[in-house]
Protein backbone atom coordinates (compact mmCIF):
# COMPACT_ATOMS: atom_id res chain seq x y z
CA UNK A 1 0.00 0.00 0.00
CA UNK A 2 1.16 3.51 -0.71
CA UNK A 3 -0.32 6.99 -0.43
CA UNK A 4 -0.85 9.49 -3.21
CA UNK A 5 -1.45 13.19 -2.84
CA UNK A 6 -5.15 13.90 -2.60
CA UNK A 7 -6.70 15.39 -5.74
CA UNK A 8 -7.48 18.73 -4.07
CA UNK A 9 -3.82 19.00 -2.96
CA UNK A 10 -2.66 18.23 -6.48
CA UNK A 11 -5.00 20.84 -7.99
CA UNK A 12 -3.69 23.40 -5.48
CA UNK A 13 -0.09 22.46 -6.24
CA UNK A 14 -0.70 22.76 -10.00
CA UNK A 15 -2.07 26.27 -9.47
CA UNK A 16 0.87 27.24 -7.27
CA UNK A 17 3.41 25.81 -9.70
CA UNK A 18 4.66 23.21 -7.22
CA UNK A 19 3.54 20.29 -9.40
CA UNK A 20 3.44 20.00 -13.18
CA UNK A 21 0.13 18.78 -14.70
CA UNK A 22 1.99 17.26 -17.66
CA UNK A 23 4.31 15.22 -15.47
CA UNK A 24 1.30 14.10 -13.46
CA UNK A 25 -0.59 13.07 -16.61
CA UNK A 26 2.37 10.88 -17.63
CA UNK A 27 2.36 9.22 -14.17
CA UNK A 28 -1.34 8.37 -14.41
CA UNK A 29 -0.96 7.08 -17.97
CA UNK A 30 1.92 4.90 -16.78
CA UNK A 31 -0.27 3.43 -13.99
CA UNK A 32 -2.96 2.69 -16.56
CA UNK A 33 -0.55 0.92 -18.88
CA UNK A 34 0.80 -1.10 -15.92
CA UNK A 35 -2.57 -2.17 -14.45
CA UNK A 36 -5.21 -2.18 -17.16
CA UNK A 37 -4.20 -5.55 -18.59
CA UNK A 38 -5.07 -7.14 -15.25
CA UNK A 39 -7.81 -4.93 -13.84
CA UNK A 40 -9.88 -3.84 -16.92
CA UNK A 41 -11.26 -0.73 -15.22
CA UNK A 42 -11.87 1.13 -18.48
CA UNK A 43 -14.11 0.41 -21.46
CA UNK A 44 -12.66 3.28 -23.47
CA UNK A 45 -9.67 5.52 -22.89
CA UNK A 46 -8.94 8.94 -24.27
CA UNK A 47 -5.89 9.01 -26.55
CA UNK A 48 -2.73 9.54 -24.43
CA UNK A 49 -1.62 12.30 -26.84
CA UNK A 50 -4.86 14.20 -26.24
CA UNK A 51 -4.55 13.78 -22.46
CA UNK A 52 -1.02 15.18 -22.53
CA UNK A 53 -2.11 18.02 -24.85
CA UNK A 54 -4.88 18.95 -22.42
CA UNK A 55 -2.44 18.87 -19.49
CA UNK A 56 -0.07 21.10 -21.48
CA UNK A 57 -2.94 23.52 -22.14
CA UNK A 58 -3.66 23.71 -18.40
CA UNK A 59 0.04 24.16 -17.59
CA UNK A 60 0.34 26.97 -20.15
CA UNK A 61 -2.72 28.70 -18.72
CA UNK A 62 -1.34 28.54 -15.19
CA UNK A 63 2.06 29.85 -16.30
CA UNK A 64 0.34 32.72 -18.12
CA UNK A 65 -1.52 33.64 -14.93
CA UNK A 66 -4.96 32.79 -16.39
CA UNK A 67 -7.81 31.86 -14.11
CA UNK A 68 -8.22 28.07 -14.21
CA UNK A 69 -11.03 25.88 -12.91
CA UNK A 70 -11.17 24.01 -9.61
CA UNK A 71 -10.31 20.72 -11.31
CA UNK A 72 -7.63 22.08 -13.65
CA UNK A 73 -5.15 19.36 -14.50
CA UNK A 74 -6.97 16.57 -12.66
CA UNK A 75 -7.70 13.36 -14.55
CA UNK A 76 -11.28 12.26 -14.06
CA UNK A 77 -12.75 8.91 -15.10
CA UNK A 78 -16.46 8.70 -15.88
CA UNK A 79 -18.71 5.66 -15.62
CA UNK A 80 -19.77 4.49 -19.06
CA UNK A 81 -23.48 5.05 -18.47
CA UNK A 82 -22.93 8.84 -18.36
CA UNK A 83 -23.18 10.47 -21.79
CA UNK A 84 -20.13 12.00 -23.42
CA UNK A 85 -20.16 13.34 -26.96
CA UNK A 86 -16.41 12.78 -27.38
CA UNK A 87 -16.12 9.15 -26.20
CA UNK A 88 -18.45 6.18 -26.76
CA UNK A 89 -21.08 5.51 -24.08
CA UNK A 90 -22.02 1.84 -23.95
CA UNK A 91 -23.48 1.36 -20.45
CA UNK A 92 -21.53 -1.90 -20.53
CA UNK A 93 -23.96 -3.32 -23.11
CA UNK A 94 -23.67 -4.69 -26.65
CA UNK A 95 -26.94 -2.86 -27.26
CA UNK A 96 -25.08 0.47 -27.22
CA UNK A 97 -21.80 -0.62 -28.76
CA UNK A 98 -20.62 1.80 -30.19
CA UNK A 99 -23.07 4.59 -29.26
CA UNK A 100 -21.66 8.11 -29.30
CA UNK A 101 -24.24 10.46 -27.76
CA UNK A 102 -24.87 13.78 -29.51
CA UNK A 103 -24.58 15.60 -26.16
CA UNK A 104 -22.77 15.64 -22.83
CA UNK A 105 -24.46 14.88 -19.51
CA UNK A 106 -24.84 17.96 -17.32
CA UNK A 107 -22.25 16.57 -14.88
CA UNK A 108 -19.75 16.17 -17.74
CA UNK A 109 -20.34 19.76 -18.84
CA UNK A 110 -19.70 20.87 -15.26
CA UNK A 111 -16.45 18.88 -15.08
CA UNK A 112 -15.24 20.39 -18.35
CA UNK A 113 -16.29 23.83 -17.12
CA UNK A 114 -13.82 23.43 -14.25
CA UNK A 115 -11.01 22.33 -16.62
CA UNK A 116 -11.04 18.64 -15.66
CA UNK A 117 -9.43 16.25 -18.14
CA UNK A 118 -11.71 13.29 -18.80
CA UNK A 119 -9.38 10.37 -19.21
CA UNK A 120 -11.81 7.58 -20.07
CA UNK A 121 -15.06 5.74 -19.50
CA UNK A 122 -15.16 3.08 -16.82
CA UNK A 123 -16.53 -0.44 -16.82
CA UNK A 124 -19.81 -1.38 -15.16
CA UNK A 125 -22.35 -4.15 -14.91
CA UNK A 126 -24.57 -3.90 -17.98
CA UNK A 127 -26.90 -0.88 -17.59
CA UNK A 128 -25.64 -0.67 -13.96
CA UNK A 129 -27.52 -3.88 -13.09
CA UNK A 130 -25.20 -5.75 -10.76
CA UNK A 131 -23.07 -5.57 -7.65
CA UNK A 132 -19.77 -7.01 -8.85
CA UNK A 133 -18.88 -5.54 -12.32
CA UNK A 134 -18.76 -9.10 -13.63
CA UNK A 135 -21.89 -8.58 -15.73
CA UNK A 136 -20.37 -6.17 -18.25
CA UNK A 137 -20.46 -7.10 -21.92
CA UNK A 138 -16.82 -5.96 -21.97
CA UNK A 139 -15.40 -8.52 -19.51
CA UNK A 140 -15.26 -8.22 -15.73
CA UNK A 141 -13.27 -5.66 -13.80
CA UNK A 142 -10.96 -7.09 -11.14
CA UNK A 143 -10.16 -5.66 -7.73
CA UNK A 144 -6.65 -4.13 -7.70
CA UNK A 145 -6.23 -5.17 -4.03
CA UNK A 146 -6.69 -8.82 -5.06
CA UNK A 147 -7.29 -9.49 -8.76
CA UNK A 148 -9.00 -12.80 -7.94
CA UNK A 149 -11.79 -10.78 -6.32
CA UNK A 150 -14.45 -8.40 -7.60
CA UNK A 151 -14.27 -4.63 -7.02
CA UNK A 152 -18.00 -4.42 -6.26
CA UNK A 153 -20.50 -2.89 -8.62
CA UNK A 154 -21.88 -1.57 -10.63
CA UNK A 155 -19.37 1.31 -10.55
CA UNK A 156 -16.49 -1.17 -10.15
CA UNK A 157 -14.48 0.31 -13.01
CA UNK A 158 -14.55 3.77 -11.42
CA UNK A 159 -13.47 2.41 -8.02
CA UNK A 160 -10.76 0.20 -9.51
CA UNK A 161 -9.33 3.07 -11.58
CA UNK A 162 -8.96 5.08 -8.37
CA UNK A 163 -7.53 2.18 -6.38
CA UNK A 164 -4.56 1.66 -8.70
CA UNK A 165 -3.93 5.36 -9.41
CA UNK A 166 -5.47 5.34 -12.92
CA UNK A 167 -7.51 8.49 -12.23
CA UNK A 168 -7.62 11.30 -9.66
CA UNK A 169 -11.39 11.47 -9.31
CA UNK A 170 -14.26 9.49 -10.75
CA UNK A 171 -17.97 9.70 -11.42
CA UNK A 172 -20.06 6.65 -10.67
CA UNK A 173 -23.79 6.18 -10.37
CA UNK A 174 -25.69 4.67 -7.47
CA UNK A 175 -29.12 3.05 -7.81
CA UNK A 176 -28.90 0.70 -4.82
CA UNK A 177 -25.30 0.98 -3.65
CA UNK A 178 -23.46 0.96 -6.97
CA UNK A 179 -20.95 3.63 -5.93
CA UNK A 180 -20.77 2.69 -2.24
CA UNK A 181 -20.23 -1.06 -2.49
CA UNK A 182 -17.23 -0.59 -4.84
CA UNK A 183 -15.89 2.06 -2.45
CA UNK A 184 -16.07 -0.43 0.44
CA UNK A 185 -14.28 -3.10 -1.62
CA UNK A 186 -11.45 -0.90 -2.91
CA UNK A 187 -10.58 1.40 0.02
CA UNK A 188 -12.00 4.40 -1.82
CA UNK A 189 -14.75 6.84 -0.88
CA UNK A 190 -18.19 6.96 -2.51
CA UNK A 191 -20.98 9.41 -1.80
CA UNK A 192 -24.58 8.83 -2.93
CA UNK A 193 -26.01 12.37 -2.85
CA UNK A 194 -29.52 13.35 -1.73
CA UNK A 195 -31.96 12.40 -4.49
CA UNK A 196 -32.21 15.41 -6.79
CA UNK A 197 -29.04 17.19 -5.67
CA UNK A 198 -27.09 16.06 -8.75
CA UNK A 199 -28.59 16.25 -12.24
CA UNK A 200 -29.42 12.94 -13.90
CA UNK A 201 -29.58 14.54 -17.33
CA UNK A 202 -27.43 12.36 -19.56
CA UNK A 203 -27.36 9.39 -17.19
CA UNK A 204 -28.57 6.32 -19.09
CA UNK A 205 -31.55 5.40 -16.93
CA UNK A 206 -32.07 2.19 -14.99
CA UNK A 207 -34.18 3.07 -11.91
CA UNK A 208 -35.02 6.77 -12.20
CA UNK A 209 -36.67 7.19 -8.82
CA UNK A 210 -33.67 5.69 -7.03
CA UNK A 211 -30.48 6.65 -8.82
CA UNK A 212 -28.02 9.50 -8.51
CA UNK A 213 -24.72 10.22 -10.20
CA UNK A 214 -22.18 9.89 -7.40
CA UNK A 215 -18.73 11.34 -6.76
CA UNK A 216 -15.98 8.81 -6.03
CA UNK A 217 -12.40 9.50 -4.93
CA UNK A 218 -9.56 8.39 -2.66
CA UNK A 219 -10.49 10.75 0.18
CA UNK A 220 -13.49 12.45 1.73
CA UNK A 221 -12.21 15.94 0.86
CA UNK A 222 -11.84 14.91 -2.80
CA UNK A 223 -15.37 13.55 -2.90
CA UNK A 224 -16.57 16.88 -1.47
CA UNK A 225 -14.63 18.78 -4.14
CA UNK A 226 -16.30 16.75 -6.88
CA UNK A 227 -19.77 17.02 -5.32
CA UNK A 228 -19.52 20.81 -5.19
CA UNK A 229 -18.68 20.89 -8.90
CA UNK A 230 -21.41 18.53 -10.15
CA UNK A 231 -24.20 19.36 -7.67
CA UNK A 232 -26.97 21.95 -7.85
CA UNK A 233 -30.11 22.62 -9.81
CA UNK A 234 -30.32 21.72 -13.49
CA UNK A 235 -33.26 22.87 -15.60
CA UNK A 236 -32.78 19.84 -17.86
CA UNK A 237 -33.75 17.40 -15.08
CA UNK A 238 -37.32 17.63 -13.79
CA UNK A 239 -36.35 15.86 -10.55
CA UNK A 240 -33.46 18.23 -9.87
CA UNK A 241 -33.99 20.10 -6.61
CA UNK A 242 -34.09 23.89 -6.68
CA UNK A 243 -31.36 24.30 -4.10
CA UNK A 244 -28.05 26.16 -4.05
CA UNK A 245 -24.90 24.40 -5.13
CA UNK A 246 -23.49 22.27 -2.30
CA UNK A 247 -20.60 23.74 -0.32
CA UNK A 248 -18.90 20.78 1.31
CA UNK A 249 -15.28 21.15 0.21
CA UNK A 250 -14.42 23.84 2.72
CA UNK A 251 -16.04 21.99 5.64
CA UNK A 252 -13.87 21.38 8.68
CA UNK A 253 -13.44 18.08 10.45
CA UNK A 254 -16.34 17.49 12.84
CA UNK A 255 -15.97 18.32 16.51
CA UNK A 256 -16.64 14.86 18.00
CA UNK A 257 -18.43 16.35 21.01
CA UNK A 258 -21.06 17.78 18.68
CA UNK A 259 -21.76 14.59 16.71
CA UNK A 260 -24.48 12.05 17.49
CA UNK A 261 -24.32 8.72 15.70
CA UNK A 262 -27.27 6.33 15.70
CA UNK A 263 -26.56 2.63 15.70
CA UNK A 264 -29.57 1.10 13.99
CA UNK A 265 -29.76 -2.51 15.13
CA UNK A 266 -30.89 -3.89 11.77
CA UNK A 267 -28.05 -2.12 9.94
CA UNK A 268 -25.36 -3.07 12.42
CA UNK A 269 -26.02 -6.81 12.50
CA UNK A 270 -25.86 -9.60 9.96
CA UNK A 271 -22.44 -8.98 8.44
CA UNK A 272 -19.47 -11.37 8.60
CA UNK A 273 -17.68 -11.33 11.93
CA UNK A 274 -14.57 -9.50 10.70
CA UNK A 275 -16.73 -6.73 9.31
CA UNK A 276 -18.84 -6.41 12.45
CA UNK A 277 -15.66 -6.23 14.57
CA UNK A 278 -14.23 -3.45 12.38
CA UNK A 279 -17.54 -1.57 12.58
CA UNK A 280 -17.61 -1.66 16.38
CA UNK A 281 -13.90 -0.79 16.66
CA UNK A 282 -14.33 2.48 14.79
CA UNK A 283 -17.54 3.35 16.64
CA UNK A 284 -15.88 2.77 20.02
CA UNK A 285 -12.94 4.86 18.87
CA UNK A 286 -15.29 7.68 17.91
CA UNK A 287 -17.08 7.36 21.23
CA UNK A 288 -13.78 7.69 23.06
CA UNK A 289 -13.20 10.93 21.11
CA UNK A 290 -16.50 12.30 22.42
CA UNK A 291 -19.08 11.21 19.82
CA UNK A 292 -22.43 10.28 21.33
CA UNK A 293 -23.71 6.84 20.28
CA UNK A 294 -27.44 6.25 20.39
CA UNK A 295 -29.43 3.09 19.66
CA UNK A 296 -32.30 3.06 17.18
CA UNK A 297 -34.47 0.46 15.47
CA UNK A 298 -35.73 0.20 11.90
CA UNK A 299 -37.82 -2.99 11.70
CA UNK A 300 -39.03 -2.28 8.15
CA UNK A 301 -35.39 -2.63 7.00
CA UNK A 302 -35.95 -6.39 6.69
CA UNK A 303 -38.25 -5.68 3.71
CA UNK A 304 -36.05 -3.05 2.09
CA UNK A 305 -34.24 -5.44 -0.25
CA UNK A 306 -37.33 -7.02 -1.90
CA UNK A 307 -39.05 -3.61 -2.03
CA UNK A 308 -35.98 -2.07 -3.67
CA UNK A 309 -35.61 -4.82 -6.28
CA UNK A 310 -39.32 -4.77 -7.14
CA UNK A 311 -39.21 -1.02 -7.81
CA UNK A 312 -35.87 -1.21 -9.65
CA UNK A 313 -37.06 -4.06 -11.91
CA UNK A 314 -40.31 -2.24 -12.70
CA UNK A 315 -38.47 0.97 -13.62
CA UNK A 316 -35.87 -0.99 -15.62
CA UNK A 317 -38.52 -2.70 -17.73
CA UNK A 318 -39.96 0.68 -18.64
CA UNK A 319 -36.63 2.42 -19.22
CA UNK A 320 -35.15 -0.30 -21.40
CA UNK A 321 -38.21 -0.47 -23.65
CA UNK A 322 -36.54 2.22 -25.77
CA UNK A 323 -33.95 -0.25 -27.10
CA UNK A 324 -35.87 -1.47 -30.11
CA UNK A 325 -33.18 -2.01 -32.69
CA UNK A 326 -34.02 1.24 -34.50
CA UNK A 327 -32.47 4.22 -32.72
CA UNK A 328 -29.41 2.57 -31.17
CA UNK A 329 -26.50 0.60 -32.63
CA UNK A 330 -27.70 -3.01 -32.19
CA UNK A 331 -29.92 -4.05 -35.11
CA UNK A 332 -32.02 -7.20 -35.20
CA UNK A 333 -31.85 -7.98 -38.91
CA UNK A 334 -35.30 -9.62 -38.91
CA UNK A 335 -37.78 -9.86 -41.75
CA UNK A 336 -40.42 -7.71 -40.02
CA UNK A 337 -40.39 -4.85 -37.53
CA UNK A 338 -41.64 -7.17 -34.79
CA UNK A 339 -38.92 -9.71 -35.45
CA UNK A 340 -36.32 -6.99 -35.76
CA UNK A 341 -37.11 -5.69 -32.27
CA UNK A 342 -37.10 -9.16 -30.71
CA UNK A 343 -33.80 -10.14 -32.30
CA UNK A 344 -32.12 -6.83 -31.39
CA UNK A 345 -33.14 -7.28 -27.76
CA UNK A 346 -32.13 -10.94 -27.81
CA UNK A 347 -28.64 -10.14 -29.14
CA UNK A 348 -28.15 -6.80 -27.40
CA UNK A 349 -29.07 -7.58 -23.79
CA UNK A 350 -27.18 -9.88 -21.44
CA UNK A 351 -28.87 -12.49 -19.28
CA UNK A 352 -29.20 -10.40 -16.10
CA UNK A 353 -30.73 -7.47 -18.00
CA UNK A 354 -33.26 -9.76 -19.68
CA UNK A 355 -34.15 -11.23 -16.31
CA UNK A 356 -34.70 -7.81 -14.71
CA UNK A 357 -36.84 -6.64 -17.62
CA UNK A 358 -38.99 -9.78 -17.42
CA UNK A 359 -39.34 -9.44 -13.65
CA UNK A 360 -40.30 -5.79 -14.11
CA UNK A 361 -42.95 -6.61 -16.67
CA UNK A 362 -44.26 -9.24 -14.24
CA UNK A 363 -44.36 -6.80 -11.30
CA UNK A 364 -46.31 -4.28 -13.40
CA UNK A 365 -48.72 -6.72 -15.04
CA UNK A 366 -52.46 -6.57 -14.53
CA UNK A 367 -53.26 -8.94 -11.69
CA UNK A 368 -49.77 -8.78 -10.14
CA UNK A 369 -49.24 -5.02 -9.91
CA UNK A 370 -50.82 -4.58 -6.48
CA UNK A 371 -49.11 -7.65 -5.11
CA UNK A 372 -45.64 -6.53 -6.18
CA UNK A 373 -45.12 -2.97 -7.38
CA UNK A 374 -47.75 -1.12 -5.34
CA UNK A 375 -46.86 -3.17 -2.24
CA UNK A 376 -43.18 -2.22 -2.64
CA UNK A 377 -43.99 1.47 -2.99
CA UNK A 378 -46.01 1.36 0.24
CA UNK A 379 -43.07 -0.17 2.07
CA UNK A 380 -40.93 2.56 0.57
CA UNK A 381 -43.13 5.22 2.15
CA UNK A 382 -42.90 3.67 5.61
CA UNK A 383 -39.16 3.20 5.31
CA UNK A 384 -38.57 6.73 4.05
CA UNK A 385 -40.59 8.22 6.90
CA UNK A 386 -38.68 6.16 9.47
CA UNK A 387 -35.28 7.08 8.02
CA UNK A 388 -36.26 10.77 7.99
CA UNK A 389 -37.33 10.50 11.62
CA UNK A 390 -34.04 8.93 12.70
CA UNK A 391 -31.76 11.18 10.66
CA UNK A 392 -33.44 14.32 12.01
CA UNK A 393 -31.29 14.00 15.13
CA UNK A 394 -28.30 11.86 14.23
CA UNK A 395 -26.18 10.31 11.51
CA UNK A 396 -26.85 6.60 11.00
CA UNK A 397 -23.85 4.27 11.19
CA UNK A 398 -24.37 1.20 9.04
CA UNK A 399 -22.37 -1.64 7.60
CA UNK A 400 -21.48 -1.02 3.96
CA UNK A 401 -21.41 -4.67 2.86
CA UNK A 402 -22.23 -7.92 4.66
CA UNK A 403 -19.09 -9.58 3.26
CA UNK A 404 -15.52 -8.88 2.17
CA UNK A 405 -15.04 -8.58 -1.61
CA UNK A 406 -16.05 -11.99 -3.01
CA UNK A 407 -14.03 -13.99 -5.51
CA UNK A 408 -14.97 -13.73 -9.18
CA UNK A 409 -17.90 -16.00 -9.98
CA UNK A 410 -18.67 -16.72 -6.33
CA UNK A 411 -22.02 -14.87 -6.31
CA UNK A 412 -23.17 -15.35 -9.87
CA UNK A 413 -24.91 -18.72 -9.71
CA UNK A 414 -27.58 -17.59 -7.25
CA UNK A 415 -29.43 -14.31 -7.95
CA UNK A 416 -30.49 -13.91 -4.34
CA UNK A 417 -26.89 -14.13 -3.13
CA UNK A 418 -25.99 -11.37 -5.57
CA UNK A 419 -28.86 -9.15 -4.46
CA UNK A 420 -28.06 -9.71 -0.77
CA UNK A 421 -24.80 -7.79 -1.18
CA UNK A 422 -26.89 -4.59 -1.35
CA UNK A 423 -28.79 -5.22 1.86
CA UNK A 424 -27.33 -2.20 3.71
CA UNK A 425 -27.03 0.22 0.82
CA UNK A 426 -30.52 0.14 -0.76
CA UNK A 427 -32.02 1.93 2.27
CA UNK A 428 -30.51 5.30 1.30
CA UNK A 429 -31.86 5.03 -2.26
CA UNK A 430 -35.35 4.12 -1.11
CA UNK A 431 -35.32 7.00 1.40
CA UNK A 432 -33.57 9.49 -0.91
CA UNK A 433 -31.06 10.49 1.77
CA UNK A 434 -27.30 10.99 1.29
CA UNK A 435 -24.91 8.17 2.22
CA UNK A 436 -21.13 8.07 2.39
CA UNK A 437 -18.94 4.96 2.41
CA UNK A 438 -15.28 5.20 3.42
CA UNK A 439 -12.55 2.70 4.36
CA UNK A 440 -11.93 1.99 8.04
CA UNK A 441 -9.37 -0.81 8.00
CA UNK A 442 -7.86 -3.73 6.10
CA UNK A 443 -8.34 -7.42 6.90
CA UNK A 444 -5.80 -9.79 5.30
CA UNK A 445 -5.07 -7.17 2.67
CA UNK A 446 -8.75 -6.55 1.85
CA UNK A 447 -10.50 -3.25 2.60
CA UNK A 448 -13.41 -2.91 5.02
CA UNK A 449 -15.73 0.10 4.79
CA UNK A 450 -18.38 1.80 6.86
CA UNK A 451 -21.49 3.69 5.73
CA UNK A 452 -22.88 6.95 7.15
CA UNK A 453 -26.41 8.06 6.27
CA UNK A 454 -27.62 11.61 6.89
CA UNK A 455 -30.74 13.70 6.56
CA UNK A 456 -31.85 15.09 3.17
CA UNK A 457 -29.22 17.58 2.00
CA UNK A 458 -27.13 16.49 4.98
CA UNK A 459 -23.97 16.10 2.89
CA UNK A 460 -22.63 19.09 4.84
CA UNK A 461 -22.72 16.94 8.00
CA UNK A 462 -21.52 13.69 6.44
CA UNK A 463 -18.34 15.25 5.05
CA UNK A 464 -17.09 16.61 8.44
CA UNK A 465 -17.75 13.23 10.08
CA UNK A 466 -15.96 11.50 7.20
CA UNK A 467 -12.97 13.81 7.68
CA UNK A 468 -12.88 12.98 11.39
CA UNK A 469 -12.96 9.23 10.68
CA UNK A 470 -10.30 9.63 8.01
CA UNK A 471 -8.02 11.34 10.52
CA UNK A 472 -8.46 8.41 12.91
CA UNK A 473 -7.86 5.72 10.26
CA UNK A 474 -5.16 7.52 8.25
CA UNK A 475 -6.53 5.92 5.07
CA UNK A 476 -6.92 9.01 2.87
CA UNK A 477 -5.28 8.65 -0.54
CA UNK A 478 -4.25 4.97 -0.33
CA UNK A 479 -3.60 2.98 -3.50
CA UNK A 480 -2.20 -0.49 -4.20
CA UNK A 481 1.50 -1.05 -4.68
Amino acid at each position, binding site marked *: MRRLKQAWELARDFREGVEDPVEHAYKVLEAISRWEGVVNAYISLESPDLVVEEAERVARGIRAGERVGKLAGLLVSVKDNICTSFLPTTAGSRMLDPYIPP*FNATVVERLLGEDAIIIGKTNLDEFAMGSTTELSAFDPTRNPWDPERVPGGSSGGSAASLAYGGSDLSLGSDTGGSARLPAAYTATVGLKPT*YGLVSRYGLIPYGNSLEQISPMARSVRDVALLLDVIGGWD*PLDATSLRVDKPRTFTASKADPRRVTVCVVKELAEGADEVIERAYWRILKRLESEGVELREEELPIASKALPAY*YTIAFAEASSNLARYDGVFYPMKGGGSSWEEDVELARMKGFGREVK*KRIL*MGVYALSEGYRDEYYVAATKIRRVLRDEVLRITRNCIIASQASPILPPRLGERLDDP*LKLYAMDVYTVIANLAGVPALVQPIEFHNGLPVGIQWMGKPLGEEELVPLGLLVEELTGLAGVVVG
Partner: protein
Amino acid sequence: MTRCNYYELLRKLASLAKIRLSDEEAESLCRDLERTAEFLRSVSDISKSLNVEPLYYVWDEWGPLRNPGEPRTINIADLPVRTKDGYVKVPWRGGRVEEA
Protein backbone atom coordinates in the same frame (compact mmCIF):
# COMPACT_ATOMS: atom_id res chain seq x y z
CA MET B 1 -35.88 -31.85 -19.00
CA THR B 2 -38.39 -30.79 -16.31
CA ARG B 3 -39.98 -27.47 -17.00
CA CYS B 4 -40.24 -25.10 -14.07
CA ASN B 5 -43.66 -23.90 -12.93
CA TYR B 6 -43.19 -20.44 -14.41
CA TYR B 7 -42.38 -21.58 -17.94
CA GLU B 8 -45.65 -20.48 -19.57
CA LEU B 9 -45.57 -17.20 -17.64
CA LEU B 10 -41.98 -16.60 -18.73
CA ARG B 11 -42.94 -17.08 -22.39
CA LYS B 12 -45.80 -14.62 -21.98
CA LEU B 13 -43.54 -12.05 -20.27
CA ALA B 14 -40.89 -12.44 -22.97
CA SER B 15 -43.53 -11.79 -25.59
CA LEU B 16 -44.74 -8.66 -23.77
CA ALA B 17 -41.15 -7.45 -23.33
CA LYS B 18 -40.35 -8.27 -26.97
CA ILE B 19 -37.35 -10.39 -26.08
CA ARG B 20 -36.75 -13.62 -27.94
CA LEU B 21 -35.27 -16.37 -25.76
CA SER B 22 -33.59 -19.59 -26.82
CA ASP B 23 -34.96 -22.75 -25.15
CA GLU B 24 -31.81 -23.10 -23.08
CA GLU B 25 -31.94 -19.47 -21.95
CA ALA B 26 -35.65 -19.77 -21.13
CA GLU B 27 -35.02 -22.83 -18.95
CA SER B 28 -32.32 -21.11 -16.93
CA LEU B 29 -34.15 -17.78 -16.66
CA CYS B 30 -37.29 -19.60 -15.59
CA ARG B 31 -35.60 -21.04 -12.54
CA ASP B 32 -34.25 -17.59 -11.61
CA LEU B 33 -37.66 -16.05 -12.16
CA GLU B 34 -39.28 -18.59 -9.86
CA ARG B 35 -36.81 -17.91 -7.04
CA THR B 36 -36.80 -14.15 -7.48
CA ALA B 37 -40.60 -13.89 -7.66
CA GLU B 38 -40.86 -15.83 -4.41
CA PHE B 39 -38.36 -13.45 -2.78
CA LEU B 40 -40.12 -10.33 -4.02
CA ARG B 41 -43.52 -11.62 -2.96
CA SER B 42 -42.52 -11.12 0.67
CA VAL B 43 -43.39 -7.42 0.22
CA SER B 44 -46.99 -8.32 -0.48
CA ASP B 45 -47.92 -9.83 2.88
CA ILE B 46 -46.54 -7.00 4.99
CA SER B 47 -47.92 -4.24 2.78
CA LYS B 48 -51.49 -5.46 3.35
CA SER B 49 -51.18 -4.35 6.96
CA LEU B 50 -49.80 -0.91 6.00
CA ASN B 51 -52.43 1.76 5.83
CA VAL B 52 -50.40 4.15 3.67
CA GLU B 53 -50.41 5.46 0.13
CA PRO B 54 -47.75 4.28 -2.34
CA LEU B 55 -44.65 6.47 -2.67
CA TYR B 56 -43.53 6.91 -6.27
CA TYR B 57 -41.39 10.04 -5.94
CA VAL B 58 -39.30 10.20 -2.79
CA TRP B 59 -39.85 13.91 -2.04
CA ASP B 60 -43.56 13.73 -2.83
CA GLU B 61 -45.31 16.30 -0.58
CA TRP B 62 -42.61 15.90 2.09
CA GLY B 63 -40.73 18.60 3.89
CA PRO B 64 -38.55 21.46 2.80
CA LEU B 65 -37.23 20.04 -0.43
CA ARG B 66 -40.02 21.03 -2.72
CA ASN B 67 -43.14 23.09 -2.79
CA PRO B 68 -46.05 20.61 -3.00
CA GLY B 69 -47.90 22.98 -5.30
CA GLU B 70 -44.99 23.26 -7.72
CA PRO B 71 -45.66 21.59 -11.07
CA ARG B 72 -43.36 18.65 -11.82
CA THR B 73 -42.29 19.79 -15.24
CA ILE B 74 -39.34 21.15 -17.10
CA ASN B 75 -39.96 24.83 -17.76
CA ILE B 76 -39.21 25.63 -21.40
CA ALA B 77 -38.08 29.12 -20.38
CA ASP B 78 -35.29 27.57 -18.30
CA LEU B 79 -33.78 25.61 -21.20
CA PRO B 80 -30.64 27.50 -22.15
CA VAL B 81 -29.68 26.28 -25.59
CA ARG B 82 -31.63 27.74 -28.54
CA THR B 83 -31.32 27.65 -32.27
CA LYS B 84 -31.00 30.94 -34.13
CA ASP B 85 -34.76 30.88 -34.72
CA GLY B 86 -35.33 30.76 -30.99
CA TYR B 87 -36.45 27.14 -30.92
CA VAL B 88 -35.41 25.05 -27.95
CA LYS B 89 -32.64 22.67 -28.92
CA VAL B 90 -33.42 19.21 -27.60
CA PRO B 91 -29.95 17.70 -27.39
CA TRP B 92 -31.05 14.09 -27.06
CA ARG B 93 -32.62 14.34 -30.50
CA GLY B 94 -29.26 15.21 -32.03
CA GLY B 95 -28.89 18.04 -34.50
CA ARG B 96 -26.72 21.07 -34.05
CA VAL B 97 -27.09 24.62 -32.86
CA GLU B 98 -26.82 27.02 -35.76
CA GLU B 99 -24.69 30.06 -35.25
CA ALA B 100 -26.87 32.90 -34.04
